[in-house]
């Protein structure tokens, strides 16, 4: 047996466990799900091939459209509001002041708490007879009292805010790590050159932080697109379908309505959408990255 052949066999042997695992638990189910997406299947009886019916229905189903819109809103809000806020917070927490360590802990604390626990606690706080409405009444704002999670106009904005509240600390910590990795000499040199404050941020901090921005943006987008637990526990998508997200709508279609084929089709469309979005995001943000 020559060395090349030996090397090949050793390579196959080393790659085999991961390949088998990937094939069994990822590739095969994925290929199977592509087939199921073209069927009507209730998980009890054998699937019936229906061609493109599920895909056509997806674009007519008002619940799915609403779920898609909500998911998009969540993601855009994360990019436009949460990211700059997290960066601002990180810049503030990177300064020297007394309660810095304490505040860092405070802002990171929501990340440590399980999302399900967060959902239950906030669910109680936001109930009609909950703490938020009690405080509003005490402040003389009776007109603002409402069932925050039981009103189709307020339910999803409330869920968006809660999600941002939880994710803010996480993003800020990543930005903070990025800020601390920027060499101090660059700031010192720029100070000698007469730059300070915003100019330093614009020309040193931000460009050198771009790799971190790429990661945080990626995490924010993925987090927004896959949001499930919070609306699932707090509202189950209601009232009506006002707080459905794509993942929740897929879950309800599969496990609630027993339309597994339809749910799989929705899952595949979501996957394609996520692929496009992440590709575009990585493409554009990587262009901006510079080396320190």
């Amino acid at each position, binding site marked *: 047996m020559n060395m090349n052949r030996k090397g090949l066999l050793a390579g196959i042997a080393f790659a085999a466990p991961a390949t088998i695992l990937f094939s069994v638990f990822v590739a095969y189910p994925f290929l199977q799900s592509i087939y199921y997406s073209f069927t009507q299947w209730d998980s*009890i009886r054998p699937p019936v091939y229906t061609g493109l019916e599920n895909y056509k229905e997806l674009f007519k189903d008002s619940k799915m459209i609403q779920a898609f819109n909500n998911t998009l809103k969540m993601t855009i809000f994360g990019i436009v509001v949460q990211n700059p806020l997290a960066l601002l917070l990180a810049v503030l927490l990177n300064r020297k002041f007394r309660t810095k360590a304490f505040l860092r802990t405070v802002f990171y604390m929501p990340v440590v708490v399980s999302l399900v626990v967060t959902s239950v606690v906030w669910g109680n706080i936001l109930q*009609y007879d909950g703490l938020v409405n009690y405080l509003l009444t005490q402040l003389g704002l009776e007109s603002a009292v409402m069932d925050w999670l039981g009103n189709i106009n307020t339910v999803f904005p409330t869920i968006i805010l809660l999600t941002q509240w939880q994710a803010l600390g996480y993003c800020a910590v990543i930005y903070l790590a990025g800020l601390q990795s920027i060499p101090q000499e660059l700031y010192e040199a720029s100070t000698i050159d007469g730059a300070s404050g915003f100019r330093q941020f614009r020309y040193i901090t931000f460009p050198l932080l771009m790799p971190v921005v790429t990661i945080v943006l990626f995490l924010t987008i993925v987090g927004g697109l896959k949001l499930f637990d919070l609306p699932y526990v707090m*509202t189950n998508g209601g009232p009506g379908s006002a707080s459905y997200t794509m993942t929740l709508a897929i879950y309800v279609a599969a496990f609630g309505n027993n339309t597994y084929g339809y749910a799989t089709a929705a899952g595949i469309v979501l996957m394609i959408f996520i692929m496009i979005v992440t590709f575009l995001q990585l493409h554009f943000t990587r262009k901006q990255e510079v080396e320190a």
Partner: protein
Amino acid sequence: MRKTWTAMLSCVLLFCLFLTACGGNNNGGDNTASGNDAANKPANNQAADSGSENTGGNEATSDVAGANDEAFTIRVGAWFIDQRTFMKEFVANVEKKYKELYPNATIQWDILLDAKYFDKLKAELASNTAPDVFFQQGLTSTFAEGNYLVDLSDQEWASKLHPGSVKFSKYDGNVYSAPMGVGTSGVWYNKKIFSDLGLEAPKTWDEFMQACEKIKAAGITPIALGFKDMWTAQVFAGLMIQSAGFESSKSFGKDLYDGAKKLDGPEMQGVMTKFQTMVESGYFNKSALSLDWPQSAEMFTTGKAAMIVQGPWMPGVAEDNFKTKGHAAFDLGYFPLMTDAGYHNLAVSVDQNLSINKSTKLLQQAKDLVSVILSPEIYGPYNVGNGNIPAISGIEVNYPNPVFNEVKTALAEGESSGGFEGYIATSAYTALAEEVTKIVSGAKFNPDDLKEAQSKQDKDKSTIILPSE
């Protein structure tokens, strides 16, 4: 070099062994023990199990059944066994009586107090990890068609089922589940509040609305809703649709299936409009969508609300709340939800069906467990607590709560049919309930919104397994 190759080969073989152990065996629903089953059983019993191959008959496991002193764990799945007094007694009595039969047996209660139990159960059945014995609701035909249930036609109790309950237990002429009693839902009201306000149980929709108005004027919430649990919206809307639908056609359910009646038709529109009227009139609690059903039940039993629309278990829940939560006790009254003309049609249904998993390795033990649960001394008190009428001949019960006489009267005075929901796709039923929650949230009802329910019905019609006639 040889050592390296031997080590690598051993790793690959070990890995393959691991994968083999992970794999399931799904031979069209034949009897392979689930991973959980194997894990849950004591080692000394696994040997006994491993030799048996169940084919749906009793004889295959007779060797296991004969060894009554052997230790084993049998799993029971349920979604409703909670901390209510009669439920705790039910569990204790089942365990005690089963111990008499199998002294070393352990019953493992797999309980998930939520409608998600059914999602879990379906996934467990599909992955061959479902409990040996499980409760289900309205899924006998579906599961039997999927070959997930043991045919129980040969059991003694199977020949004693009341004619009215047989259809909930049969599929293709065979009995696949035991009905845990038949019952009906309706409006349960606080008799003290009603008498204080000079009200009587309404007979027509107008009288119902007038009663709500008077209660509201007295500063009490007329109807407690706990629509965070979507099924409660289905119960409420279902009662209204049942009466409105069967008033328009005596074969309303079948008509919906055949397309002669539509889910966006005048019956449904009428029901949704009535919901909107009740919302606009302030007859529901403002926390309707953020309370779950136990919270809404507490609202009713504390006297903060005068009525609640619930299933037959409500009097038992109220009794329990009076005893354990210190709420001031009051007498409950009952009336059905009626149409403008006072017509009512009640869907008499079985809330819990007891079935045996076809994949169980403990077939005889499972059949014995079902027999224990259906024995008069356990089944009887369970039905009393749950507000149901026993579905097995020869088991008579006395209800200490006189409200059940009002239920019997309502059943006798009105009509009863199979629930319309048995004829519509689950996705369509979900769409209807979502429309109700949307209206309760304050959104104005738009008749076009119901088109989605009909569209789901058209698309998913083939998923419907019609109830036995």
